[in-house]
């Protein structure tokens, strides 16, 4: 990862929502980088702050109630966290594209697909309306929608779910952005369509050399597309590493829990799926210690009292867990065993 340039650099991001009930600390001290042309996945269960993090980068959250508390966001050499709303408008859609979870509701029902694609081109590039429509049609071709001539004048309700998500991708990529943020892009689609959309995203990434940040809770999607993975829990990054490192040598008990709760084709014998018991902590008053301690089978006294520091497993693999402390009892990593047997 050292040979590629940094495209997005998020440093110590803190993001909160001010509600009547108090401050919800949705993102707490999150730092990560995305390289040019890289695909990164942010994984975690609902409410762990993964979407909020990316919406903070795009500044899409209504503020108030949202509030950027601390940190720096540097995109392509510019500190965009200091940008004005107007400057952000010139970045959104042109340099950072975004697609959302539900294609059924993410397109304006009263505007033709063609106009919705052309709109973003017209906003960011000095072209005529006719030229913009021509490019919109090309984008429909690019994302694999047949009969673009006819489709361009149709409305979202005339498209199927998968087609709409393709149209969303066309909108997001129309201005050839350097970064594509995909917020659970396949969650609302059925499985066969999911695979098509993921393939399309991979193809387009190669073609346009776009970096992708994929927000998801679906580890199957992650394995398919991501080079690097960030695991978030209760507004914090608890483990990060390359796809191989996270899937083959996960270190955090929460990551183990995540991996054990999805079915695996390569399982040696009929393993039972194990759910993670309990619910994530209340972000109105996040715990002082490790946020996962209350649900962790290996929790020690220290876990409830202080936040664990990050431990480097390798250059790219970091984990925040007290089990990594030299004085901690040695715990058998359920995935290392499997990894060793499969290799040896």
């Amino acid at each position: 990862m050292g040979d590629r340039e940094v495209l997005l650099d998020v440093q110590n991001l803190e993001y909160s929502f001010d509600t009547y009930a108090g401050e919800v600390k949705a993102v707490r001290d999150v730092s990560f980088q995305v390289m040019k042309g890289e695909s990164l996945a942010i994984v975690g269960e609902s409410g762990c702050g993964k979407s909020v993090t990316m919406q903070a980068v795009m500044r899409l959250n209504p503020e108030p109630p949202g509030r950027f508390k601390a940190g720096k966001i540097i995109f392509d050499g510019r500190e965009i966290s200091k940008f004005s709303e107007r400057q952000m408008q010139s970045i959104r859609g042109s340099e950072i594209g975004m697609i959302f979870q539900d294609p059924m509701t993410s397109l304006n029902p009263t505007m033709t697909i063609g106009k919705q694609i052309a709109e973003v081109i017209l906003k960011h590039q000095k072209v005529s309306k006719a030229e913009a429509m021509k490019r919109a049609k090309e984008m429909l071709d690019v994302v694999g929608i047949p009969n673009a001539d006819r489709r361009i004048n149709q409305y979202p309700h005339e498209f199927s779910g998968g087609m709409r998500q393709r149209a969303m991708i066309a909108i997001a990529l129309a201005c050839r952005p350097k970064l594509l943020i995909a917020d659970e892009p396949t969650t609302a689609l059925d499985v066969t369509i999911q695979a098509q959309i993921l393939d399309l995203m991979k193809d387009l990434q190669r073609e346009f050399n776009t970096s992708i940040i994929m927000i998801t809770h679906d580890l199957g999607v992650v394995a398919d597309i991501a080079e690097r993975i960030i695991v978030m829990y209760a507004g914090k990054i608890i483990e990060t590493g390359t796809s191989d490192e996270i899937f083959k040598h996960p270190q955090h008990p929460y990551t183990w829990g995540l991996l054990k709760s999805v079915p695996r084709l390569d399982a040696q014998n009929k393993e039972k799926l194990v759910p993670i018991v309990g619910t994530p902590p209340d972000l109105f008053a996040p715990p002082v210690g490790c946020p996962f301690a209350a649900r962790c089978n290996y929790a020690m006294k220290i876990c409830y009292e202080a936040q664990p520091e990050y431990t480097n497993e390798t250059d790219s693999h970091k984990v925040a867990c007290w089990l990594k402390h030299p004085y901690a009892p040695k715990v058998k990593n359920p995935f290392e065993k499997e990894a060793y047997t499969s290799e040896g």
Partner: protein
Amino acid sequence: MLNYSLKRFVYMLITIWVIVTLTFFLMHMIPGDPFTSEKKVPEQIRQNMLAKYHLDKPLIVQYGYYLNNLIHGDLGISLKYLNRTVDDIIKQSAPASFQLGIQSIILGVIFGLLFGIIAALKRGGGWDYFSMFLAIIGISVPNFIIATLLQLLLASKLRWLPVSGWGSFKYTILPSIALSFSTLSIISRMMRTSMLDVIGQDYIKTAKAKGLSQLQIIWKHMVRNAIMPVVTVLGPLIAGIVTGTFVIEQIFSIPGLGKFFVQSIYDEDYSMILGTTIFYSVILVVMMFLVDIAYGLIDPRVRLAKGGK
């Protein structure tokens, strides 16, 4: 589309026929006849008068006469205004009411939409409270109070505009404003509600992620999606206002149609009652038709559903 319009036209005729029939028979159930309130006349004269207007025939025969005349575009002779046909009265009084109604609708729609949109965008702020306060005033305070206040302030005290009467454009300003208050209130409240709904939609987030400015998002993505409920109420609202309003026209001494709606019932002026009812229902039914067409223009999903059948 032509097929659909034709079908709608037939339905419109049926609707009007039903209204005419119901009104006709209900009206005759009111005790007395058009001459009850006149001074006592000899029985023979009374019989002659009834005979002149076919009122001595069985009800069903009268109904037949009326329908036959109606098909030929004849609304009959007023039983109260000597030698004046209902057609003439409507033709003479409707334009004033119509002008007033249109002006007040335009005022009400423009400011209603504006207030509603701003209130939704600045939800919980000063503008929101101001425009919703105005809306509550507009709905709960009767328009004759607003009318007299306007007369007092703008005409009597400041002498900017005439107190009442009819003639040039300046006479229409005060009554138009007074009439527009209720329209404005209804529309601003509806627009606020549906804007709040649209603001939370995912496609607004998409629009923002495209880098559009707030103004572009409001104009291109919010208003068109939020305006449907307003269009729905606009049909009956327009029909009600352009056919004249009794109170406002009385206050400003406007020679409009409004008073005939009320007076004809006191007079039991059968042909006048039917005439005004038909006039109102034709306008209402036409407005409904226009609203349906507007639906299709605004929301493509409606268009498809109809074209498919």
